[in-house]
């Protein structure tokens, strides 16, 4: 089922949680609502589910207005971060709940319920836990049971609110790969909320990036990751190094230093900008010309796998008593060998792939 939201606005008291949100969620896709905490992503999910109602705006299910429909009638499967399993019921009864509460005329016979529950438990690979109680399960198992329970009523759309948020790193990684496989099997339109960009990148077909109640960027996951449209999108989607400065012809002036720009920024000369580079997009120069590249000194070097990570300290931004800037650079081990870096060594940072954004006064 496809979902559309149009012009959604939601306020809590004076706080604007969502402002003019319009989005489309195509049928059968797995979409991530990504953003920092407090950006309104969970509120949007709850509005789609019918657990919350927008002040203004419409929610369309397959083109049909769902405003008048209660959560009971929307046929959405909702999975909470903290599982919300019924503590006094066995795993079996938890999964069977949605079938047992159907109106008498639609309620399937016991034999069907049993078959369906075991089918679902097999789908989440936990059939052997049917007679346990939620307290006896691990976090990852509980979340899979919560998912099986949501699927039992054959929802038209699956909504997951930070589904892996309270699991430890290893289980989280396993579970998100598993969710992706499950989605490829079932093809049910799914929206999940996360604040973890890796999770979104790994699992989702499309990403909706949100910030402060607004949609910042939306598109296929790889697109959004490769081409962040705003400074916020760039810095949220991975580790970044920031270089505040001014555009000066074909290069960027950072303090007294200049860094050449590969692409011509859509920003006029002399304007204040902020430039970003990912750690692997920076290079370290040991004996560079004065003024070419941003000066910094090596603080720490550590090696993981094929890459070496170098942490550096820059000069504090001029005129401010702020703490010195920190940079992080990823280079190959080979390159590290050539440079022969020592902690405390003064070096310069250059990059051929700086992305320049105008300064957003608000952020």
């Amino acid at each position, binding site marked *: 089922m496809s979902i559309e939201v149009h012009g959604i606005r939601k306020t809590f008291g004076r706080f604007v949680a969502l402002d003019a949100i319009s989005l489309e969620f195509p049928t059968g896709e797995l979409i991530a609502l990504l953003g920092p905490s407090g950006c309104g992503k969970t509120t949007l999910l709850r509005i789609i*589910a019918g657990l919350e109602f927008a002040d203004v705006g419409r929610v369309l299910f397959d083109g049909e207005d769902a405003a008048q429909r209660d*959560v009971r009638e929307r046929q959405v499967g*909702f999975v909470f971060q903290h599982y*919300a399993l019924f*503590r*006094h019921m066995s795993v079996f009864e938890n999964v069977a*709940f*949605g079938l047992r509460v159907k109106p008498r005329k639609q309620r399937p016979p016991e034999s069907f319920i049993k078959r369906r529950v075991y089918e679902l438990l097999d789908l989440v690979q936990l059939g052997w836990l049917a007679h346990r109680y*939620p*307290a006896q399960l691990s976090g990852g198992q509980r979340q899979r049971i919560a998912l099986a329970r949501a699927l039992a009523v054959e929802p038209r759309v699956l909504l997951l609110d930070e589904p892996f948020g309270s699991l430890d790193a290893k289980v989280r990684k396993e579970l998100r790969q598993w969710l992706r496989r499950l989605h490829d099997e079932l093809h049910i339109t799914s929206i999940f909320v996360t604040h973890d960009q890796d999770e979104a990148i790994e699992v989702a077909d499309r990403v909706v990036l949100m910030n402060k109640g607004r949609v910042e960027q939306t598109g296929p996951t790889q697109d959004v990751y490769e081409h962040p449209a705003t400074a916020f999108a760039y810095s949220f989607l991975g580790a970044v190094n920031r270089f505040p400065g001014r555009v000066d012809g074909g290069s960027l002036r950072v303090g007294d230093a200049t860094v050449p720009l590969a692409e011509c920024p859509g920003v006029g000369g002399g304007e204040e900008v902020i430039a970003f580079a990912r750690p692997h997009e920076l290079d370290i120069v040991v004996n560079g010309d004065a003024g070419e590249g941003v000066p910094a000194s090596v603080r720490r070097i550590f090696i993981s796998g094929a890459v070496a990570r170098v942490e550096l300290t820059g000069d504090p931004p001029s005129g401010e008593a702020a703490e010195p800037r920190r940079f992080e650079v990823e280079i190959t081990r080979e390159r590290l060998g050539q440079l022969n870096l020592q902690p405390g060594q003064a070096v310069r940072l250059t990059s051929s792939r700086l992305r320049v954004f105008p300064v957003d006064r608000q952020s």
Partner: protein
Amino acid sequence: MAQVRAHRVLPGFGLSMGYTVAYLSLVVLIPLSAVFIRSASLSPDALWAAVTSPRVMASYRLSFGASLLAAAINTVFGFLLAWSLVRYRFPAKRIVDALVDLPFALPTAVAGIALTALYARNGWLGQYLENLGSKLAAALVYLYPGGAWLGPYLEPLSIKVAFTPLGVLVALVFIGLPFVVRTVQPVLDDLDTELEETAASLGARRWQTMRRVVLPTLIPALLTGFALAFARAVGEYGSVIFIAGNLPMVSEITPLIIITKLEQYDYVGATAVAAVMLVVSFVLLFTINGLQSWTDRRVAKVG
């Protein structure tokens, strides 16, 4: 082989256990055993006669019957009150919350006198309840004259509260209310609304969510509240004697029988009746507690 001394993570078990036992003996067990020792000075036949005389038997029925009924009423309405206090916002909520505790704080005799004044034949409420039938008939004729033929059937309808067993029930409901509210409230507070939202998203209607999700998790707390309200009601004396009227065989409660016997210097008879009360109360409370820990275990299986 060196012996390894087992260390407990929480120190001081010996000391705190010793203290618990000593304190419990001093404060609870010794006074209670005195009741049994005292009553044992009667011959078995005399003892049996003292505790099973018709008047005493009638008082048991009233005391335990009214207490159980009052505790049951309080469980239902205490739950509703707790629900409103936890789930809704309304003006003066704090005042309502504080009012719940008043029956705890009020000297029971004051409560008894206030209730009696309300429900006595010439009291504020009592005069209307007494003539409920005729008032209803009059109202019916006023609103719908064609219903006048119903009048004679309504006329005899009359509810007497003061000086009847009903009065005893009213007093016991009054003093037992805080127990249920205060035991259910914190549990309800902890009950995640996500559970109800999940149930709703799975298609459960409101009452199904209530019956299958909310109530099962609250049962242990409700049982505790019930037990406390019941225990308080069985032992209640002050508020009841004013409103009960204390007619032998009709509205006389067991604690009053004990007092009466004491006033007649029948100490042994008084303690014998007290011992029966103790045993029955203990058995009832023990049963409720057992029931509670059984449901508790079922619920807690979950964590």
